[in-house]
């Protein structure tokens, strides 16, 4: 138990150093998720929307 706690304490500074980059990574993931639905719909419907805009019925 004592050795475990010592190892934990020894690793703590390194773990704490990781925290800012972990937070930044999480923020990026959240920002990406926020964009997700609108971007997906924009991409899915883009081609057909362009076609609607330039549609000249084939003769």
């Amino acid at each position, binding site marked *: 138990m004592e050795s475990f706690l010592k190892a934990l304490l020894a690793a703590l500074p390194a773990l704490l150093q990781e925290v800012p980059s972990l937070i930044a990574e999480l923020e990026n993931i959240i920002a990406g998720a*926020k964009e997700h639905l609108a971007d997906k*719909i*924009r991409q899915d419907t883009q081609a*057909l*929307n362009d076609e609607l805009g330039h*549609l000249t*019925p084939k003769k």
Partner: protein
Amino acid sequence: MRRLLALCILLPSLILGAAGAFSGCSPNTPGLDPRALARGTVETLETVWLVSAKACVEVANDQQSQTTADDCANYLKPARAVLLEAADAVDIWDDTAQKNFPCLIVSALSGINDARGILAIAKIKEPQVVADGLALAAQYVPTCNKDAGK
């Protein structure tokens, strides 16, 4: 003896009480999360838009009618723009986004329904996803009307 009797009553009560408390944690009467419902509605309406736009393009081509093509574009391009706004609202989902969401859906619905008018005249049979998407979207009509009346 009295102690034993009390124990016999108390113990099952405790067990039943604990079971009741734990069952309270699970959604035995599941309430639908508003954001999940909004996302599902937008995603399904996206499919409805795609189906309607494809069919509209086909009808215009079959009829070789530029007027039909223009009508399709006039109805469906704004509907797509509003659908994207609704998707943005789901992504953001703050108070303003939640307040605006129902009327965005109703607006998208209006454009899609106008295009469906062209498909109905051309006797195009729609897939089930269209009816399902419209049914989902229709849930927001009373909310939009209520907010508009304020």
